[in-house]
C-alpha cells in the first residue's frame, strides 16, 4: 500500500489514542507486578468487573460510565485491599507466593468470570454516552470521541498516580517496598500496610480501565483473557515499576499496531508488537525506562 502522509498521520493518531487505553489497562499491573512483585493474572478480570459495574450503573441510572468508574474507585480499592490481605495471609507470609500465589490469581480470574456470567448472562453488554459515536475532525485527522475521551482521562489518571507516588510519603514507600523491605521498615513504614494500600490502588485503577473498555467495545465476561498477554508485555517493555516507561511502551505499541494494521495488514500487528518487545529486551533487558 502507498504511504500517504494523511494516512500515516491518521495511523499515528489512532495509535496514540489506542496507546492511551493500553496505558490505563496496564497501570494496575505496573503497580502490582512492577512494584510489589505480585503476578496478578486476574487483573484483566477486575477490569471486566469494572466494565460491568459501569454497565450496571449506566443502564440502571443513566450515569456516565467514567463518572460511575470514579464513584466505584473506593469500592474497588477496598476490594483490592481485601484480596491482598487474603493473598498475604495464605501465601506471601508463608513464602508460597511463587506458584501457589499464581494459582490463587488464576482461580480468582475464573471465579470473577463465572460470577459475571451468572449475574449478567453471556450477551455482549455496552454503555451509552454522548461521546460514543461522534468524531472530531481536524483537517484529515479523525478523532473518534469514543477513543479520545478514554485517552485524556487515562493520561490524567497516570499523571495523578505518578504525582502521588513521587510526592507523598506513602507513594514513595510503595516504590521502595520492592527495592528494600527492611530499609522501609527502618523508616517506620509497615511494608504489609504499604503493599495493601498499593494493591488496593492497583485494583482501583481497574474500575476506570473497565469503563474505558466498555466505552470502546462491547464486553462479555470472558473477554478479559484477551488482555492478559498484552498488559504484562507492556509493563515489561516499559520497565517494571516505571510509569513514564509504561506510558511510553503503551503508546509505542499502540502506534506500531496501528501503522502495521494500516500499511501491512492487521494480521501482522501482534507479531510486530511482540517483535518490538523482544528486540527492546534484547538490547535493554530492564525495559525502556526500567532501573
Amino acid at each position: 500500500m502507498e504511504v500517504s502522509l494523511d494516512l500515516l498521520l491518521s495511523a499515528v493518531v489512532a495509535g496514540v489514542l489506542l496507546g492511551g487505553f493500553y496505558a490505563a489497562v496496564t497501570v494496575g499491573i505496573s503497580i502490582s507486578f512492577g512494584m510489589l512483585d505480585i503476578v496478578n493474572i486476574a487483573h484483566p478480570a477486575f477490569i471486566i468487573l469494572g466494565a460491568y459495574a459501569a454497565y450496571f450503573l449506566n443502564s440502571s441510572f443513566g450515569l456516565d460510565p467514567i463518572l460511575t468508574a470514579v464513584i466505584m474507585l473506593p469500592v474497588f480499592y477496598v476490594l483490592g485491599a481485601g484480596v491482598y490481605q487474603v493473598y498475604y495471609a495464605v501465601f506471601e507470609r508463608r513464602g508460597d507466593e511463587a506458584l501457589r500465589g499464581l494459582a490463587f490469581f488464576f482461580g480468582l480470574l475464573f471465579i470473577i468470570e463465572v460470577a459475571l456470567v451468572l449475574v449478567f448472562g453471556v450477551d455482549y453488554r455496552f454503555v451509552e454516552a454522548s461521546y460514543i459515536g461522534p468524531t472530531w475532525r481536524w483537517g484529515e485527522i479523525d478523532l473518534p470521541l469514543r477513543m479520545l475521551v478514554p485517552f485524556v482521562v487515562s493520561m490524567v489518571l497516570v499523571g495523578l498516580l505518578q504525582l502521588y507516588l513521587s510526592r507523598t510519603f506513602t507513594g514513595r514507600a510503595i516504590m521502595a517496598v520492592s527495592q528494600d523491605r527492611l530499609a522501609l521498615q527502618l523508616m517506620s513504614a509497615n511494608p504489609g500496610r504499604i503493599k495493601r494500600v498499593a494493591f488496593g490502588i492497583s485494583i482501583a485503577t481497574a474500575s476506570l480501565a473497565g469503563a474505558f473498555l466498555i466505552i470502546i467495545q462491547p464486553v462479555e465476561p470472558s473477554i478479559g483473557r484477551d488482555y492478559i498477554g498484552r498488559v504484562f508485555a507492556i509493563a515489561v517493555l516499559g520497565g517494571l515499576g516505571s510509569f513514564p516507561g509504561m506510558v511510553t511502551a503503551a503508546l509505542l505499541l499502540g502506534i506500531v499496531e496501528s501503522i502495521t494494521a494500516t500499511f501491512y495488514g492487521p494480521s501482522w500487528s501482534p507479531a510486530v508488537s511482540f517483535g518490538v518487545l523482544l528486540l527492546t529486551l534484547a538490547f535493554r533487558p530492564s525495559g525502556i525506562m526500567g532501573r
Partner: protein
Amino acid sequence: MKRLLGRMRIWLGASVMLAALAPLTAGAVEPIKIGFGMALTGGLAGNGKAALVAMQIWAEEVNAKGGLLGRPVKLVYYDDQTNPALVPGIYSKLLDIDKVDLVVSGYGTNLQAPAMPIIMQHGMTFIGLFGLDVNHQFHYDRFFQIQPNGEDPKISSIEGFFQAAMTAKPTPKTVAIVGADAEYPKVATEGAREIAKKDGLKIVYDRSYPPSTVDYTPIVHAIQATNPDLVYVASYPPDTAGMVRAAHEVGLKAEVFGGGMIGLQFAALKQQLGEMLNGIVCYDMYVPSSTMNFPGITQFLAKYQPRAKAEGADQLGFYLPPFAYAAMQVLGQAVETTKGLDQKKLAAYMHATTFHTVVGDIKWAANGEWATPRVIFVQYRGIKGNDLEQFKKEGTAVIVAPAKYKTGDLVTPYSAVQH
C-alpha cells in the same frame, strides 16, 4: 428357634415387597437422550444460549405430547465455552459415557468441525447448527446442516450480497474484502474473492485481522484509502461492532458496505448499534416479512421471546433459535417415522425427505447442505434510536436478495442511507 422364624418372616416379607416393586422399576421408561455441546459462555454464548432455549421449548412440547416412540426426550449438554479444543472431549463423553442416543452440534463452524471425527467414528447422524462448509473436507454422508447455505456454501451463502450490490448505479467496479483470522471468515472471504472475480470486480483491499483487535479505525482508514465501491466484511460479533462503529466514525464512503457480519442479527448488537446500522447490507436467515411467513414461525416466536427475556437470551430470536427448533423438529420426525434410533436409517430418511418446519421446507442435497440455498441479504433502513420493538416489525430490515424473498430494492450509496 422363634427368633430364627421371626427373621425368616421379615426376609420373606421384604422379598415379596421387592418382587412386587420390580415390574414398576423395570417398566420405567428410559428417555431418549439427545446430546450436544453448546456455547453457554464465551464469545458465541449469546446465540448458544438462545439456541438452547429453543431446543428446550421443543423438548417440552414433545414430552407434553408423550415423547418420541412413547419415550420422553432428555437434552444432555455441556458448555463448550466457545472453545474448539473442548469439543472432541465433550462428544467423546456424550457418546462413550453418557451413551446418548442422538447428537446435534454446537453453534458455529469452529465448534462443529472438531466434533466431526468423533461423530464419524461412532457413525452418528449429525445436524449442524449454523456452520459454513463444515462437511467440505469430511464428505460425511450422515451430516446435515440446518443453516440454509446451499450445496456450495462458500458461494451460495455470500452471493446474495454481490447480487444486490451489482444492481447499484453506476455498476460497481472495485471491492475491498476484509475478515477475521478465524474459520468462518476465512471461508467467507474465499467465497467473496471467487464471486468478485466472476463479476469482474477488482479487489483493491484484501486483508485479515486478528480477532483480538481493539481499534478498527486504522483498518477502515486503510480501506477508505483504496476508494472501493463495495466493502465486504466477514466478522464475529465484537469485530462486527468495531467495524460498524469505525465505519460510522470515519465516514466510510462506499456504494455498499456489509457482507457476512455475524452479530447484526442479534438483539444485543441491534440495540447497541441502533442508527449506525442504517445502510448496511448484511446476511440474515429470517426477518419478519410478508415473504417469510412460514407456518408455525409466529407461534414459535410468541413462545420463545418472553422466555428468552426471562432467561437472559437473545430477545428477538430471529437468527439461530427458529433453526435450532427446526433441527429438533427434523430429528423428531425422523425418529418417529423410522420407528427407531438406527443412525443409518435416520440419515437415509433425512436425505430422502422434504421436511415442513417453522423455517419452511427443508430438503437436503447429497453433501448435507440445503438443496436450495436460502440465505437472505437485508439492508437496514429507517432505524431510529435503540428500541428493539422496531425490529419486530417489517420495514427496518428490507430484503434485497434473493429475488424470491425480496421486499425492496437496494438504496445506495451507503453513506447517504447512513446519514
